[in-house]
């Protein structure tokens, strides 16, 4: 899993993109892009 490249689809009402990005970076994962969608 660590050698994969990550695409992050956060949610404004759930876990936002930047929060997930911090998590992925904490184990050395490469983030390709991170966004925060709004489903409302």
């Amino acid at each position, binding site marked *: 899993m660590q050698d994969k490249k990550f*695409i992050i689809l956060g*949610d404004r009402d*759930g876990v936002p993109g930047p*929060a997930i990005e911090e998590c992925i970076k904490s184990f050395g994962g490469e983030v*390709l892009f991170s966004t925060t969608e709004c489903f409302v």
Partner: protein
Amino acid sequence: MDLENQARIKELAEKLGPENLVVILGGAEAEASGLAAETVSNGDPTFAGPLAGVSLGLPAYHIFEDAIKNLVDPQVYDDQVSMMEMVLDVDEIIKEVSTYREQYAKF
């Protein structure tokens, strides 16, 4: 899922190879999270975006799932995610996302 994001994901999969990509979701509820997992693996079920009819086979995990959570620095997880984990229906979200992943993800 946002049409612009569908386009970006399609482009990245074509450029880097779908076998190298993993999608991480932060959705607040099960249905929308499942829809996103379905879109990146089997194609856009609403047939509205660039992934309509395109089965990339990408695996999608919710950040709450152990496969991802266990990799994350516990302090970072605690700071960034744990509060939402307490208020959302984690079991239902994980069930929905993993169902689509197991059914459609190819990698």
